[in-house]
């Protein structure tokens, strides 16, 4: 029996060595495929993590539902900590970054009175969106780049930055309208040649945009201005 016990012990140790080697491979894969938790555990947040265990997504959903309720009751400021919490729990959830950035740069911006406050919330929105793309798994998707570009373009009238982020958005799989908006941004930024080239690209690639792209090219060539 004792001999058999040693045999079991040896087999178990060998299996644990195997488990360790496989775990090394899994950790490597997690890094490679951006599957790591990406949760920064602060001392105060540890308790929450203990409770949540493997159910971070579910917790994020519950907070999202709470956010919806606050949203519809017009309690905009109360949404902010929830947005931060959802982003912390599930940073790969793109919608939380795009909606959060839009909420700060548009909704709270509209709710505050002074120019300083407006500027502050515009900056906060931009900052939140940039934080979103700082995560590697978000950096290879067009969504947040587009939202950033749009906030610069539409709210901030900051066309150089708008062009910069729209261009980044077009590097990743994206819907047709991203190319359309980029063409507008080129024009607003004074890059007429680039705007014409971009409209030509839109005209040749997206049939739904054919008429508008043709008109834009014509206006840019004749009047030097197309976007109202």
């Amino acid at each position: 029996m004792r001999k058999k016990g040693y045999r079991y012990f040896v087999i178990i140790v060998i299996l644990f060595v195997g488990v360790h080697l496989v775990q090394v491979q899994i950790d490597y894969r997690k890094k490679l495929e951006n599957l790591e938790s990406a949760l920064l555990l602060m001392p105060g947040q540890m308790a929450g993590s203990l409770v949540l265990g493997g159910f971070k997504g579910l917790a994020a959903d519950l907070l999202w539902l709470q956010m919806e309720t606050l949203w519809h009751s017009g309690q905009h400021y109360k949404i902010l900590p929830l947005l931060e919490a959802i982003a912390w729990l599930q940073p790969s959830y793109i919608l939380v970054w795009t909606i959060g950035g839009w909420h700060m740069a548009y909704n709270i911006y509209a709710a505050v009175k002074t120019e300083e406050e407006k500027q502050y919330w515009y900056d906060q929105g931009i900052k939140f969106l940039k934080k979103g793309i700082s995560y590697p798994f978000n950096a290879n998707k067009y969504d947040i780049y587009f939202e950033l570009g749009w906030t610069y373009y539409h709210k901030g009238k900051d066309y150089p930055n708008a062009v910069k982020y729209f261009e980044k958005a077009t590097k990743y799989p994206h819907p047709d309208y991203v190319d359309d908006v980029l063409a507008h941004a080129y024009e607003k930024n004074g890059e007429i040649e680039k705007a014409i080239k971009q409209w030509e690209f839109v005209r040749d690639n997206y049939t739904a945009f054919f008429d508008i792209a043709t008109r834009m090219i014509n206006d840019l060539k004749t009047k030097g201005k197309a976007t109202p």
Partner: protein
Amino acid sequence: MKKMWLIGLNTFRESMRKKTLYIILIFALIVIGASKLFSFLTAEEELKMIKDVSFSAIEFFGALMAIFGSLYAISTEIERRTIYTLLTKPIRRSDFVLGKFFGVSMIVLINFILMTVFFIGLLFFKKSPPDLQVFKTLLLIFFELMLISGITLALGTFTSDAFNIICSFFLYIVGHLTSYGKELVERTENIIVRGLTDMLYTLVPNYENFNIRDKIVVGLNVSWGYVGWTILYGILYLCIALYIALYFFEKREI
């Protein structure tokens, strides 16, 4: 092999008579079905919530079934003294333990299939048929449940039911947190602490390896390579659990 199969089948039939597992299954189906209540959200948000709630329900209620199914598999036989009759027959103890595991696995599998079919039906109802990533997530959840069963069964060979249930739940929670613990310890410079943590990281089952659902629901892709390594991890750890179960059961005086 035939004896193992018979013991497994018997364990399965016996468990099917227990009401606890049915109650857990009904709860699971209610929770999965309730995820349809999020229809006030946008389509994208709703789909994410349905997947989140369903994956979590399948895993959590599946874990409950795995723990409760395995918990009484061996201890009931000892309590009722039916094991004496069994072991007087030409049945090896290893056949008995593996047969019990086999029976519990069948229960877990059937409940898992029922919950999965219900979930997939819900996705079809929402006109969003499941993609390959959904199946990868479900596959890993299933292997996690098998591992939980194996570990609970192993603990049942040398602990009381009460201690086993506490230990299994404790391992379930800790197993989901080891990755975070390691991330924290990686920042320490103390070699002893790091060494100990590395050891614990290997010894404690890392259930978080099987958790890809948080990534899948937000549209990230997980490769077959990752899934394959994680399944291998599950199989190796399951072998350890079963070897421990065999060792203690053979040592046990019955």
